């Protein structure tokens, strides 16, 4: 177990290293930091002097090491626009994004498992055909269009849900504000969560369905039938447990991807999260903030994948975490 963890942590460090190099390389090539700092009314000599002072004339290697050293101490530079440490800016926006991803994940897990299982067990019913048809539509329509259509139908036309913002939020601990403790917060998070889930949900329904259909053809399911086990136990224990193994692996990657998808959803719903912030930072050429965003998202990706791998090891008895890597 320990050896496996150590191995995973080393992998994570390697991935983070690559992300940081890419992030840093972007920083050096996105406009002139001096222009952002001092504007136009400074002479060329003063500029050169400032460049030297800021270390902008040092080699790439030296600059990267300085950047990496600061990053390790939690300093990802200072946002030009907010005049605050970039990491602080992002961490303030992080809860909103994570709650949105959480909402979408709950929707995906809550709907894809029953719908996937149903369409696998009863593939010929009208309902199954409708679900499969809709899932194709869901995959084909881009997130921003789904979001706009949802606003049009459910906010503008019917007026059931608010169309933008987070609504009433409650401070939980530190700066973490949550939507999940007020009715208004719930109303605000529903539409954006569904919009964010709109691509992944059909994907997971189809994935679970095809895995389940394959498992239902297996010899061990036939043997369970030959033992006289009830269909319910066969479907939801024998088959589902085997179905979910590959789904967990894919799911881990997709949760990370969803953090990236929030850029679109948050923009449409004016959701005050990291994704919305990132788009604004791009508009303002707020380079430190852009780089910090890339690194934080990369970090989230690495952490979720590591956790998912560990969970997979716990669910799948043929992967023995205790002995792995030893």
């Amino acid at each position, binding site marked *: 177990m320990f050896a496996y963890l150590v191995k995973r942590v080393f992998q994570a460090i390697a991935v983070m290293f690559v992300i940081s190099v890419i992030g840093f390389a972007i920083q050096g090539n996105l406009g002139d930091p001096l222009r952002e700092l001092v504007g136009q009314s400074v002479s060329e000599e003063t500029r050169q002097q400032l460049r030297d002072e800021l270390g902008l004339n040092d080699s790439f290697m030296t600059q990267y090491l300085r950047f990496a050293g600061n990053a390790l101490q939690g300093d990802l530079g200072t946002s030009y626009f907010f005049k605050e440490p970039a990491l602080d800016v992002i961490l303030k926006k992080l809860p909103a994004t994570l709650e949105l991803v959480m909402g979408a994940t709950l929707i995906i897990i809550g709907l894809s498992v029953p719908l996937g299982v149903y369409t696998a067990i009863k593939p010929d019913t009208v309902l199954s055909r409708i679900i499969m048809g809709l899932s194709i539509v869901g995959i084909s329509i881009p997130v921003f269009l789904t979001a706009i259509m949802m606003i049009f139908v459910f906010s503008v036309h019917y007026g059931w849900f608010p169309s933008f913002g987070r609504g009433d939020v409650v401070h939980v601990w530190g700066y973490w504000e949550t939507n999940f403790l007020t009715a208004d917060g719930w109303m605000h998070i529903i539409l954006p969560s569904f919009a964010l889930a709109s691509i992944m949900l059909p994907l997971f329904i189809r994935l679970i369905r095809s895995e389940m259909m394959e498992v239902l*053809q*297996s*010899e*061990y399911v*036939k*043997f*369970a*039938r*030959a*033992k*006289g*086990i*009830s*269909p319910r*136990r066969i479907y939801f*224990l*024998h088959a589902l*447990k*085997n179905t979910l*193994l590959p789904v967990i692996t894919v799911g881990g990657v997709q949760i990370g991807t969803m953090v990236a998808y929030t850029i679109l959803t948050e923009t449409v719903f004016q959701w005050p999260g990291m994704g919305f912030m990132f788009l604004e930072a791009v508009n303002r050429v707020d380079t430190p903030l852009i780089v910090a965003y890339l690194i934080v998202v990369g970090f989230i990706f690495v952490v979720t994948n590591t956790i998912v791998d560990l969970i997979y090891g716990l*669910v*799948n*008895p*043929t992967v023995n975490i205790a002995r792995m890597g030893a």
Partner: protein
Amino acid sequence: MSLLSVRDLTVKFAMREQTVTALNGISFDLAKGERLGIVGESGAGKSITGFALMNLLSRPGFIDHGQIMFEGEDVVTMNDRQLRGMRGNRMAMIFQDPMVTLNPVLTIGQQMIETLMAHRKLSREEARQIAIVKLREVYIPSPEERLEQYPHELSGGMRQRIIIAIALLLDPQLIIADEPTTALDVTIQADIMELLLELCQSNQVGLILITHDLGVVSQMTERTLVMYAGRIIEAGRTREIINDPQHPYTQGLINALPQQTLPGQRLKQIPGNMPSLTNIPPGCPFNPRCEYATDLCRSRIPEISHYGEVEVACHEVQRLQSNDARREVKA
């Protein structure tokens, strides 16, 4: 009264273009505690017979008509509840490949205990105790530990023993074993067969052994059915069939055994292949491969009828027999 009485069992497969007949009017009986072998080439319908007896055919296969009287009840007309009550309880099945028969994500214990609890009102602990007893009966060392293990931690031979133990859990009247040793190492095959024979004899359990191995059939069973293209073509006491086969196909099978040829000599093969179900020739399905085939064989399907000690479906049995007699006289 016989334990199992099958009459005119016909199984069809609904394919996209047409419906093909995989089993064509199979009839046979099995007495309590009797051991019956079903032999034939791949595709003859042996495994389908096994699954049909359990009414466990998966789509697109279905029982078209016929009767399977098991302990006085017709398996064909049972509802799902009755079938579930019978399967694993009064009639159990042993599958071909032990590497894929057990569920990889459930422990041996879970898979044994659930079987017991599906059929009997038992506490988990009582079920566990029965499972341990049954594992001992199949000579599994330290059964308590095995219950906590997952299938992938055990060898193929060990898994097949466990599967046999699962089949025996509820003391069934009949076990259907579908090529139970084909997937195993040759050295383990004999052990498993011996174990199966011993358990069936000591518990008075009926056995239907599906195999293509005539040697196994001769050691294990009292009676034998020979199948070809979805039909029974010869049936009778195993000893008679092995020593004095009547049907040209059965004769071919026995002549193809290595024991029937001298070292260095080529094995005697039956020419050609079994016809596919979509393309069964008119008349006797064996006629294109049969050296004795006549016009009658090519036009009419032979009925199965008593011939001496055995039942044979062949138009030419009599002629074959007189040939044999003449040959014997010459010799």
